[in-house]
């Protein structure tokens, strides 16, 4: 019950930020030059036709009026009309959302699968060759352009070892997991590079904490100490690292989706920018921002679940 009220309150608290987000998303496309109408008609239209289209799209109205229209479109749930698809932006965005959500969740899970054992190994075997090797691999992973890694993996797994599909979203849960493995892996590698670092140092720090000696003094063997006492407390700081990083993960999907031809919102964003479908771009920026806020809410709840001290604060 309290958790529910907490979540509800957090959602209410987000409203001012969301309004700010809509203003930013709106202004972004109006203040910046570039005319969707002339691009849309392009070589085939006359000036009059362009003007007519501008009017049809409402681009000739004053800025505040356009913003009100935009707010109205959001209020009625359509988020406006896609210029290229002539369908409500909400529909266009929503049908592209699942692959991206799956990709984010999948890559996060993969990152955790990579992070926890490797970070523990590196921390326990601190300054050994294995610690060094893990560090070296992930410094390289962090410096490697994800798009290039994606291209290389596509070549490797598309041709040499055709184990994983190199594009598309697949069908069914297994199909999704199978198709999204490579893109999720690319994102997870970048994320893990950061989280392994953070978890490793926080395990090292926590292992010297007083309460760990209390646990050891009870006669717990070291692996029980690690499992029951060290890991949970180390995860606290890693969750915050992960939460700061979600914005990157979500943003990173844009590039990865483009490389792996995934029909997600990131791919839609790039396409819409190239086709100057501004209502869609606008709706997408708001969607992305809302997604980040939603995930930060989830992290907060996760944080509270791990750390009782900050519960509901």
């Amino acid at each position, binding site marked *: 019950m309290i958790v529910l009220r907490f979540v509800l309150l957090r959602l209410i608290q987000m409203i001012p930020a969301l309004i*700010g987000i809509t203003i930013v998303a709106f202004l972004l*496309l109006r203040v910046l030059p570039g005319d969707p109408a002339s691009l849309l008609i392009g070589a085939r239209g006359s000036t009059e036709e362009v003007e007519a289209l501008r009017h049809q799209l409402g681009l000739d109205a004053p800025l505040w009026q356009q913003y009100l229209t935009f707010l109205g479109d959001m209020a009625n749930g359509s988020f406006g009309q896609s210029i290229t698809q002539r369908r409500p932006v909400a529909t266009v965005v929503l049908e592209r959302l699942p692959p991206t959500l799956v990709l984010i969740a999948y890559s996060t899970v993969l990152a955790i699968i990579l992070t926890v054992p490797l970070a523990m190994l590196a921390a326990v075997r601190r300054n050994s060759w294995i610690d060094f090797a893990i560090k070296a691999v992930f*410094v390289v992973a*962090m410096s490697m352009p994800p*798009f290039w890694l994606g291209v290389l993996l596509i070549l490797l797994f598309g041709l040499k070892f055709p184990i994983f599909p190199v594009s598309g979203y697949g069908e069914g849960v297994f199909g999704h997991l199978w198709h999204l493995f490579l893109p999720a892996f690319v994102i997870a590698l970048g994320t893990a590079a950061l989280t392994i670092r953070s978890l490793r140092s926080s395990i090292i720090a926590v292992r010297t904490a007083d309460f760990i000696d209390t646990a050891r003094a009870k006669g717990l063997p070291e692996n029980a100490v690690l499992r029951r006492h060290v890991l949970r407390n180390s995860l606290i700081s890693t969750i915050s690292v992960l939460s700061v990083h979600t914005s990157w993960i979500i*943003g990173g999907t844009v590039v990865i989706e483009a490389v792996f031809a995934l029909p997600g919102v990131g791919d839609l964003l790039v396409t819409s920018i190239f086709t100057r479908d501004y209502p869609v771009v606008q709706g997408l*920026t708001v969607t992305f*921002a809302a997604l*980040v806020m939603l995930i930060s809410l989830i992290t907060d709840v996760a944080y509270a679940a791990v750390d009782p001290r900050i519960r509901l604060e």
Partner: protein
Amino acid sequence: MTTTITETPTASPRQRRLPRLNPPLTAGLAMLVILLAAVLLGPLFSPYDPLKVDFAEALRPPGAVHWFGTDNLGRDVLTRVLAAGLVDLQIATVCVVLPFLIGSTVGAVAGYFGGLTDRILMRIVDILWAFPFYVLVIAIVGTLGPSTGNMYLAFTLVVWISFARIVRGEVLSVRQSEYVMAARLLGYSHLRIILRHVLPNAITPAIVYAMADVVLTILAVTALSFLGLGVQPPTPEWGVMIADGRNFIFDAWWISTFPGFAIIYTGIAFTLLGDGLDDLLRPKG
């Protein structure tokens, strides 16, 4: 009888002006110096023009004449990798320095003075924070049209918030420290306290982050270029070279591989530099 008794200082009287270089810092600096030397001096010594098209020399594999081979337009890949390095480093520097300056100033002001200033600035930061980095950058650059100037603008608009958050957090904790209270009690002006007492002790994480940000920026710039939204050909740029070269990966692997290595090399250099600076700049005692 005198009651004051002197002690000898506990630390060895080593000269404090010469900071000991730690291994990651040394390695990072060395890698960076090599990179800068190659990027700045390389083109002077290269017999090739990074832009010169020569179909007769197209798709030569790496060898004695063209160490990194040539691309499909017969341009020397090594020369282009070096020229691209200059472009990328230049963009990365500007895209980190501008947000660093703006973000640190905003963060310091918000953190030090607190109150309404803080709340307004942080609200703006929160709103911008909600936009994923790539989404905002792609949207800005995509709408404005791809160009270096627009990338500077987009990165600055997006990245300053990170520095503002970091510096503000540090300033908040430094502000609580007793030496800052002492400084206030000694009647120093706010500007003096911020510049001499707060910032020097609060800026280290921002500097360390700046190093990581260089890596992220180079990755982002190359990614944008890869998507066709960044640096435009024929200007050599690593991301563009990878994008151009990927169709040749089977018959001319060198076109995209060397710029890829260059990015990784740069990334490692700045990561080491960040680690080293973290060690070096963290205040002792």
